[in-house]
């Protein structure tokens, strides 16, 4: 299986990307819940969560529903350099 396919199948069926144009990975231990990425993403792909990380923040979550175009605006504004971006 190629890398893309591995990504695809790594999601639960319900959350599988429809079109894999872009993809991000958030290091949730680095995230400090500033929500700058949530505001930067024009496609509402990143949402707050109620999970907890070791620092005591609620790290944000990537919704991965195929709307991500890999524009990297989220990664550009992330103060913690916690976001990595892939693009087709």
């Amino acid at each position, binding site marked *: 299986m190629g890398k893309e396919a591995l*990504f695809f199948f790594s999601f639960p069926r319900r959350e599988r990307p429809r079109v894999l144009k872009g993809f991000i990975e958030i290091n949730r231990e680095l995230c400090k819940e*500033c929500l*700058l990425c949530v505001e930067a993403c024009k496609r509402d792909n990143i949402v707050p969560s109620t999970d907890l990380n070791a*620092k005591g923040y609620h790290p944000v979550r990537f919704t991965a529903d195929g709307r991500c175009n890999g524009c990297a605006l989220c*990664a550009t504004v992330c103060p913690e*350099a916690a976001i990595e971006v892939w*693009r087709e």
Partner: protein
Amino acid sequence: MKKVFSRPRTLKDVPFHYCSGCGHSITHRLIAEAIDELGIADRTIGIPPAGCAVIAYNYFDIDMLEAPHGRGCAVATGMKRVLPDRIIFSYQGDGDLAAIGTAETFHAANRGENITVLFINNAVYGMTGGQMAPTTLLGQTSTTTPPGRTAVLDGHPVHFSEVLATLAGAVYVERCAVNSPANIARAKRAIRKAFQYQMQDRGFSLVEILSQCPTNWKMRPTDACRWVDEVMTKEFPLGVIKDLQAKG
């Protein structure tokens, strides 16, 4: 799929100690990206200040040497004169650069020392708990100006970049911000340009960064970013203040 964005190599895999949404963190990443793009990691030396960025040496995978409060430009001067082939940058807050370090900064710029200064203007003394800085805005509350800064008691906000730009030795001075994707991209270009000017032996370069301090501004990070746009840039307009090479 291709990886199009990841942590720059020069930024160590160490979590930042800065508060959530702090502009220092973003600026650190931009400096690391600029160093990577120019391929100068093995010959760059950074000088962290006293202030929130006092342990910046934990984050950059380059040589760094701490300077006493405000003395970044003096230390950079000595370093550059002894090691002229190195790229030397001093990283300083507004309290560090524009209050206690006024003399060192002013004269280094006037001598046209071939160094680069990153001037982080967050309009307060961040590390010590939010006292008034020279750059605090009129009306802005701080722990030492509880009713808000007034011109009569405290003087007007100091435009230090504009002051330095009047000096013959300063070749490049630009004010940027790190509160939006567009401004962050511009700030990165400015930092890279400042390093390039130093690599070309042109003289003193300084990039001022309007940097959000959500903690002492007592705002959410997203509101702090808006405040930079709506309030701070009205007092400190963004853009190139001086660029000697641009003219000819």
